[in-house]
């Protein structure tokens, strides 16, 4: 059996990305939606690392560190807003936050 190459990693990362996107669109709980967003970001990270590993130098992996840091900040902010929302409205269901429309 041949060892996995660049294309395999890319396929995995694309699948991860789609799974994440599907999670954002389909899951009902905002916490899970946030996690799905993380999956999307990590799919991109995987692609970056794969490209970096297969011949593009270390730049991509450095980029990944930045992305991880930024994602952590994003999640912190997201969770803070979710906590505030839960305190005020008692819900973190996506379907409950549709007051602003049209």
């Amino acid at each position, binding site marked *: 059996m041949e060892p996995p190459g660049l294309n395999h990693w890319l396929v995995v990362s694309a699948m991860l990305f789609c799974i994440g*996107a599907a999670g*954002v*669109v*389909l899951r009902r709980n905002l916490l899970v939606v946030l996690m799905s967003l993380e999956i999307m970001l990590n799919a991109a990270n995987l692609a970056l690392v794969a490209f970096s590993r297969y011949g593009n130098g270390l730049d991509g992996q450095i980029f990944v560190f930045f992305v991880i840091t930024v994602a952590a900040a994003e999640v912190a902010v997201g969770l803070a807003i979710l906590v505030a929302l839960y305190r005020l409205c008692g819900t973190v269901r*996506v*379907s409950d*936050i*549709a*007051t*602003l*429309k*049209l």
Partner: protein
Amino acid sequence: MGHAFLLLLPLTAFAVGGLFLRRRHALAATVSTASALASAAWATWLAWAKADPAAGAVWLDAGGFTVVFRLEWDALARLMAAVVTWVGAAIHVYSWGYMRGDPGTGRFFAFLSLFMFSMLGIVLAGNLVMMYVFWELVGLSSYLLIGFWHERASAADAGKKAFIVNKLGDFGFLLGILVVWTVLGTVDFLDLQAAAPTFRDRLAASPLGFLPLGAVALLLFCGAVGKSAQFPLHVWLPDAMEGPTPVSALIHAATMVAAGVYMLCRLFFLFALSPVALEAIAWTGGLTALLAALWTVAQDDIKRVLAYSTLSQLGYMVMAVGLASPHAAMFHLSTHAAFKALLFLGAGSVIVALHHEQDLWRMGGLWNRMRWTSVAFLVGMLALCGVPFFAGAASKDGILLVALRENRALFALGAFTALLTSLYMGRLFVAAFLGAPRGEAAARATENGWVMKGPLAVLALFSFAFAWRGGWAHDCLATLVGAPMEHAPAVVHAFFILIPLCGLLGAWALYREKPTDALGQLFPGLRRALASKFLFDEFYLWLVRGVQERFAAFLRGVDQWGVDGLGVRGVSLAAFCLGNVLRCFHSGSLQFYGFLLGLATAALLIFGVLR
């Protein structure tokens, strides 16, 4: 030299008045009036001295296209500037009397100065971009002045309507300007005139070659259709009577609506390239003249009579341009500015004396109570009807003569309109000034003070033909005409004398000593038809309502604006419909948004990769 002062004087008055004098009414009025008088005097001096303006300064140099700020001062601009400044000055003075005691007087005079600034800007503009800038500014100041009593919903709506309908016309105008700019590479009038003969070839060679020349000319004409209230964008002008009467006189009779005609004359060398466009322009003008005159016969509000009559006269001017004689149009524009302003100010004087009563059939007997106003109004009326020795006769007959030579059908239409004109003016005069008073206010009316009588006297003077026959105005006109005014055979002259006579006598016979609209009593059906403006409004309204009920879900919240024309209403209806359909996408559901985002991204991805 010093032509820029013509613009700077009213601009300064506007800035000072608008920023510092909103509460100090007397001072604001003084500053504004002084600036108007000064610019009138200055314009006269400049015209008399035939001074050449300074060379332009670069205004915008946006790589490849340059716009130079240049002032134009040829015969056309001189004549128009004189008309605008003098009529404007007279109306400024008159406004002292009319606006006395109004809490917004300071604001009013500031806006008047803004209007004078913008109007003079159109007159002096040396290129299309400048003209468009001031064109829009005129629209803006007219919006502010029509909606001056903005706490009255009808006034606010009328202002909005005027603005939007004008914008529709400007839409075409702007596109036309852009085409000309793209094809000829310049916007300066002198360069344009020099390049005009090559326009047809260069248009065909440009990427816009699919446009026929006539279409470009008609795009430019759209601007005049909006500003000069030609059919089918005429709907805003009668509503604009919601503004104070001096505004109606200044903007909606003498100057702003004339801007469209002025633009047609200024750009005549472009219109002249396309006979088809000229034909369309002539028929638009003729049709407007006839329809408006018909509708006027059934109007009962003194200001609305004058408004529709203005529409009709503007139709004459546009028709003259369409018949390839811009000089005749400009001549009629100038005389019309004088006598229509006179009529409006006379009407304003009546309205003030009658404590804002505007219904013709509650007036009557004012001849004895307001002799000064009545005489002035009579002069204006005779001028409008085209009675010999009055200004209107010379100018209107000029247009009719051109029509007789160029297009018999339009001549017949114009002559019939002239007959209607004298009929409805006779009706107005008989009903308002003669007979016995029919209302309490009319019975107790008294003449107004000198501030209002003075301007009437000046304008009445200008309503006599000799004022236009000698001296400087004649020089200006002669430069424009290039050839002496045409002489017609005696039989035609007799015919021209006969028309107003018939109309006035007819009106006398019909309306004398009648308490209500006699024509309406004789032919109630006819009156209803005329008053309904041929049911255009109702038909459109019915059509629109039927559609609305079917699509009620989409149409929630559509408010009732611009019900008057299928163009205006139809466009707005379609826009609101589509807008509400688009709104439905914003459902408020986060995940629906996410889904749409994913879908759009996928589509873009596929497009990018497959292409």
